[in-house]
């Protein structure tokens, strides 16, 4: 599904995953400084579909994705360069963002959600809500 091998991660690998997420976070910060928000979002979404059961890993990954999402200014432009394979996982993170209740996050998520639904259709929403195996 994602580029690279899909690995089944056990809970005792949580420390390794968190280290990886921190490394990802530094990469994203540097991409944002270079004014590449779409690349930053792609980096943030990569690896999220791996089986992550630990809540700490999910929260850490959410913080990273949130940072990348809030940096997006041009939503239309983002979709022209984002591959369709990222749509489902992006939709899951949008719903997580919408459940936070924080005004700027919800505004941004609603804006992206509208465009993503236009592109990916209602099936994307259904897949992201119905998937109980890979959750964010």
């Amino acid at each position, binding site marked *: 599904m994602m580029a690279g091998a899909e690995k089944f991660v056990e809970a005792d690998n949580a420390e390794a995953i968190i280290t990886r997420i921190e490394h990802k976070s530094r990469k994203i910060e540097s991409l944002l400084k270079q004014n590449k928000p779409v690349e930053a979002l792609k980096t943030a979404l990569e690896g999220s579909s791996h089986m992550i059961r630990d809540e700490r890993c999910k929260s850490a990954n959410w913080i990273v994705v949130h940072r990348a999402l809030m940096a997006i200014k041009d939503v239309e432009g983002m979709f022209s360069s984002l591959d369709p394979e990222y749509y489902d996982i992006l939709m899951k993170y949008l*719903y997580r963002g*919408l*459940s*936070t*209740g*924080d*005004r700027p996050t*919800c*505004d941004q998520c*609603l804006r992206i959600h509208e465009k993503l639904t236009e592109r990916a259709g209602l099936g994307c929403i259904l897949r992201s*809500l119905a998937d*109980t195996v890979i959750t964010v």
Partner: protein
Amino acid sequence: MRKWLVGCFLCCWLWIFLICSLAMQVLICRNEAEKCLIETSINSLRISLKVKQADELENILAKKFLRFLSMRAEAFQVLRRKPVQGYDISFLITNYHCEELQKQKLIDFIVQFMEDIDKEISELKMSVSTRGRLVATEFLKQF
């Protein structure tokens, strides 16, 4: 006999697992004050809304207006008499409703309902302010 018992036991566990995996909640917030909670189960759906209440007057108007609607829940069929804790109004849509009524029309109804609530509360607020101003003007005329 033993195989049959093990089979029954496994079926029960699968059934409980299925029920737990089918029941889910989705929370969608517009901001801190407005949110929508959708809870699903095997044969029904509960949609709870928290409407915008900018000041004390809107708070009272929303409470009274939505209580008025909830009391007449039978007329709406899909409305719940009591909202879920923490929300202002709740809908309960069961499989029977989906069989009798058209799904698309149900969705349109709920969306229209949400738009109308906001419009209605704004109109009520405006009419209360207008009336208050008129009453105050009349009263102060005598001084």
